[in-house]
């Protein structure tokens, strides 16, 4: 197309005068509107290229041999027969990659392939690269490994009790080698305030482990070219950390390692640290000089795991007679599985992240993460805090009942509020929790339902709070946490380079909305190149709900620099002040006379002529030193906190124990919804995932240490017919730190699902199920026990005679 024709076309597609008038009235042009994603059509037309869709010329396929024992010493590995097999190009074992790796720099305890010990069924011991998967599989069968089988632990308490059989070498002499981390923190006088409390709820909760179950299995491709450069394509949500670890472990110049993250088929925290396959494809590629791919089978995904820690949580919560929380005393054992992963952080999170959205006079937690001979636990959506959230919110329900206060009212009485600090000294700025509570209360007709629905049906409420990124990166450094680089073309097209990981949450789209908002270019004039470490400035990755806040701010920073130049150039041409120039809807226009305008590309050209090629970088770093001054005070300290409330409505089948979750109302304070469609998508996806963990998911093992059911048939995730109706109610508190006030929506909205359902089950049938998941056998058993007690006269029938039941004593 000739440039003039193109201009004509651009003008035809740009906003009309009326729209520009309207634009001037609005706070934002793009932000807050229900827009398409940048990658939506590519995905819905099957054209998005995921890692396993990539095939390189001469590519080899590799497979990893895995341990059949939960705990064993490796005495010898003989690969000679396998090497002789036709089609096999190379085999590596642990000693070929003798450097440890791990996501936390001070706790690296994994090898690409095990060297002296295997610690769970599925731990990798050797990898074969061959011309095809069939040959690689065949070769695995020919590798001979001699093991000395060791005693193993599948239960955290048991492992804790047996330091004489350590899964890892103790970190210090005399330390228990089965303890990965212990944290104890106390804020205020817990024991005294508990004693003074009017009522105390006390119970033991057990959260069964669950796993991410992204539909896309992990996959990686390594390629070592003749110039000595390593490229790894991987289904990772932390390309930057992977980049560093690959270079370190393989002893390569960091500058000669490139990590590319193609679109990812779901992650949820399950792809947020390096895995064996990435090191194996890299090493095998270096040896063979050929591209090498590994695609996990679904079974291997279950072994890679890093899902939610099973947690045993003993909780005591005291309140005064008005329902004000006086003290929370939590004692938690985390089942970490075979390795460290994010363990240290998880251990802190299991205590640190429940101190909002409520005020509490005092708080103590004592958390111990224990190694067991199972696949390693790690971060799953709502890292470390979904489990204790279950405990605390059920405790509040008990207190409300004991004090005969409506549970929503009880939560209101303990409101933390905004611009304040939590008991563990986190700085909370915006806080829309009250509005969240109100929204779900109203939408669910709570007042007409709570304790009013007939026997078998019930409603439950729960609240929560979550971080929008962490103030401190995983490896200590002063550099920005996120950065964006913009490049402007004469056509009006803007390219965004950013290290952020699009994992389905919409981070690419978020960048495009911001550029479109700031520079006035239509959305389809924005191109995103993300997560390619050779070309994109560092962003730390998609974890802890950090991308919108951090990357968004970085993007505003970069776009602001260009905007300034463009406005200046246009203003000079029009002989007016730059602030009289606005960029929106494909135009640069005069705010005083919207008739005076030029296509945005022309404005860009003016600026380019005046200032040289248009480009800018922007970055964001978190506020430091706003956390409490105690060891661990940095962990959980976030630039902004999101808030959520759920009401769940359930129907419990009294005879069978089936819990039918009918509907979940989700009120979520995301700060500002940059695109409500995407925010709702995160809210619904989160509530769905919490619901699934509440009623069906369990990552469990047979006594032999074998995974109970490493398949998508036997590990139950909900189908369309199981999933409840989900209603999203967005609350916007507009946070001072977030881009346009935005916080997060990817993880926070999951937290209340489980306790809201637990509390609803109680409202429906009067039983507290303190162990997850609420499977029919478990609920049925609890109903039997209650029926026995009713028969014995120890309990009044639940909700059957009157609308209300007599209240049992607290802690009952």
């Amino acid at each position, binding site marked *: 197309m000739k440039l003039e024709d193109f201009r004509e076309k651009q003008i035809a597609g740009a906003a009309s005068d009326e729209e520009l008038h309207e634009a001037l009235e609005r706070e934002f042009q793009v932000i807050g509107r229900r827009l398409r994603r940048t990658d939506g059509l590519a995905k819905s037309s099957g054209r998005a290229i995921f890692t396993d869709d990539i095939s390189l010329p001469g590519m080899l396929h590799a497979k990893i041999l895995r341990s059949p024992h939960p705990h064993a010493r490796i005495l010898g590995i003989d690969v000679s027969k396998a090497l002789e097999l036709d089609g096999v190009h190379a085999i590596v074992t642990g000693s070929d990659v003798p450097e440890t790796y791990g996501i936390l720099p001070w706790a690296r305890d994994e090898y690409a392939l095990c060297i002296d010990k295997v610690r769970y069924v599925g731990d990798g011991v050797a990898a074969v690269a061959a011309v095809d998967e069939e040959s690689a599989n065949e070769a695995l069968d020919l590798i001979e490994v001699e093991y000395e089988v060791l005693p193993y632990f599948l239960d955290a308490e048991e492992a804790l009790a047996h330091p004489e059989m350590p899964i890892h070498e103790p970190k210090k002499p005399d330390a228990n080698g089965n303890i990965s981390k212990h944290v104890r923190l106390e804020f205020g006088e817990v024991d005294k305030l508990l004693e003074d409390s009017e009522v105390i709820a006390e119970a033991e909760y057990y959260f069964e482990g669950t796993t991410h179950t992204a539909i896309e299995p992990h996959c990686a491709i390594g390629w070592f070219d003749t110039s000595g450069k390593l490229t790894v394509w991987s289904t990772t949500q932390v390309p930057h950390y992977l980049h560093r670890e690959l270079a370190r472990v393989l002893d390569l110049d960091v500058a000669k390692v490139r990590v590319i993250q193609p679109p990812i088929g779901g992650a949820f925290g399950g792809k947020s640290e390096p895995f064996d396959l990435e090191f194996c494809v890299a090493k095998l590629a270096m040896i063979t000089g050929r591209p090498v791919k590994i695609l996990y089978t679904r079974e291997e995904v279950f072994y890679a795991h890093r899902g939610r820690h099973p947690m045993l949580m003993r909780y005591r919560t005291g309140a005064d007679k008005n329902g004000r929380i006086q003290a929370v005393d939590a004692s938690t054992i985390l089942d970490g599985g075979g390795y460290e992963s994010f363990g240290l952080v998880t251990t802190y999170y299991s205590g640190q992240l429940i101190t909002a959205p409520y005020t509490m006079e005092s708080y103590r937690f004592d958390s111990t993460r224990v190694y067991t001979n199972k696949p390693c636990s790690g971060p799953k959506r709502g890292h470390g805090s979904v489990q204790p959230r279950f405990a605390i919110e059920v405790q509040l329900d008990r207190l409300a009942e004991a004090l005969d206060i409506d549970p929503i009212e009880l939560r209101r009485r303990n409101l933390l509020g905004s611009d304040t600090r939590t008991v563990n000294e986190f700085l909370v700025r915006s806080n829309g929790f009250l509005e969240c509570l109100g929204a779900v209360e109203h939408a669910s007709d709570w007042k007409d339902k709570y304790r009013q629905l007939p026997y078998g049906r019930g409603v439950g409420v729960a609240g929560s709070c979550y971080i929008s990124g962490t103030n401190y990166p995983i490896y200590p450094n002063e550099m920005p946490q996120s950065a964006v680089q913009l490049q402007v073309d004469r056509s009006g097209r803007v390219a965004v380079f950013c290290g952020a990981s699009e994992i389905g949450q919409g981070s690419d789209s978020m960048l495009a909305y911001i550029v479109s908002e700031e520079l006035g270019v239509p959305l389809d004039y924005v191109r995103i190149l993300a997560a390619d470490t050779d070309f994109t400035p560092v962003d730390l990755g998609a974890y802890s709900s950090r991308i919108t806040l951090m990357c968004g701010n970085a993007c505003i920073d970069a776009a602001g620099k260009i905007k300034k130049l463009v406005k200046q150039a246009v203003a000079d041409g029009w002989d007016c002040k730059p602030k009289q120039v606005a960029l929106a809807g494909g135009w640069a226009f005069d705010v005083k006379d919207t008739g005076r305008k030029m296509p945005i590309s022309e404005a860009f050209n003016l600026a380019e002529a005046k200032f040289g090629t248009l480009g800018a970088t922007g970055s964001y770093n978190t506020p430091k030193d706003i956390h409490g001054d105690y060891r661990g005070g940095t962990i959980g300290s976030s630039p902004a906190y999101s808030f959520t409330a759920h009401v769940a409505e359930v129907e419990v089948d009294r005879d069978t124990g089936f819990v039918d979750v009918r509907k979940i109302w989700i009120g979520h304070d995301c700060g500002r919804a940059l695109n409500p469609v995407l925010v709702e998508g995160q809210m619904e996806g989160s509530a769905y995932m919490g619901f699934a963990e509440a009623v069906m998911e369990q990552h469990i093992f047979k006594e032999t240490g074998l995974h109970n059911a490493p398949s998508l048939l036997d590990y139950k995730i909900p189908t369309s017919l199981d999933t409840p109706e989900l209603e999203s109610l967005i609350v916007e508190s507009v946070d001072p730190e977030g881009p346009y006030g935005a916080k997060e929506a990817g993880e926070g909205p999951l937290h209340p699902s489980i306790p809201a359902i637990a509390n609803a089950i109680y409202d429906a049938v009067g039983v507290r199920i303190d162990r997850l998941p609420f499977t*029919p056998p478990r609920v049925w058993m609890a109903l039997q026990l209650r029926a026995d007690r009713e028969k014995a006269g120890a309990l009044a029938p639940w909700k059957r005679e009157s609308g209300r039941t007599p209240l049992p004593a607290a802690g009952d």
Partner: protein
Amino acid sequence: MLRLHPYVYHRPRRLDEALELLKEHSGDVLPIAGGTDLVPNMKHGLFAPGHLVALKGIDELHGIEERDGELAIGAAESLTAVASHPLVNDHFPALAHAASLVAHPMIRNQGTLGGNICLDTRCTYYNQTHFWRRALGYCLKKDGDVCHVVAGGTKCVAAHSADTPPILMALDAAVDIASADGERSIKLSDFFTADGMWNKRLERHELVTRVRIPLPSPKLHATYTKVRERKSVDFPLLSIALAVELDDSGVMDSISLIVAALGAKPRVIGGLDKIAVGKKPTDDIVEAVARQTYRQCNPLDNIIVEIEWRRAMVPVYVRRSFNAILAEPRATA
């Protein structure tokens, strides 16, 4: 991905060709219909025949038609067809319902009635990958000599897990069977055995060609109930088929109750004639039937959901089955 082993895939057009192939490659061949059971099992290394004989392209194995007082359904008809065919829905809504409860829509499109009847038994220690089974130690049913469900057991007790056979049994269906040596037919209630290794009276070179169900009298009421964790995809944890004939006054002339997904053979509950026949299905009678059924059902750890609960669900679902029948407009008329 889970790769299959190399095999020769035969696609005969005629039944006799198929039967010849089965005979010719005897010991190294399996018939494949929809493949929805066989292919996953082969991917797990449970079967590795050198030859597969595809049945879907054989015309003689298709067709749903009424003839000689029976409804005949070709073995290669898909479960979707069975679930939606007007003749099945008219005469045997409970069968259509059972077929609609199998797995999920795609599997019902691909899977066949014959394959469902011949479905391999299932067990949590068996339907696993080769890596997993080897790590655990092989079991009787495949390559090993112990049973992980019954300590010291010498017999495989893997669960019959198919959805249509129980209701077909309750409806008194028979299957036609053919081999290169001839044809025979057998009542479905005599077809299954309690041997989890191979729970059918079917020679390896034989094929089920057709299912025949006597057309029901207006007195017949039948229902199929399936207990499963999710509302789709899942195999039964327990399933109950119930058929009763009710005379004009609501008295039961006959009763047939089958409970499946316990062991290798769907269990025909015995002694019910004495309890129920000649009586109305009052609460007391239903309760007596429920108790009798409970006594005869002992779930095993072949399925991973708690035994105690699965057993306790037996009487619950017997009652529900009666409720379903009595709620039908025809039953109360």
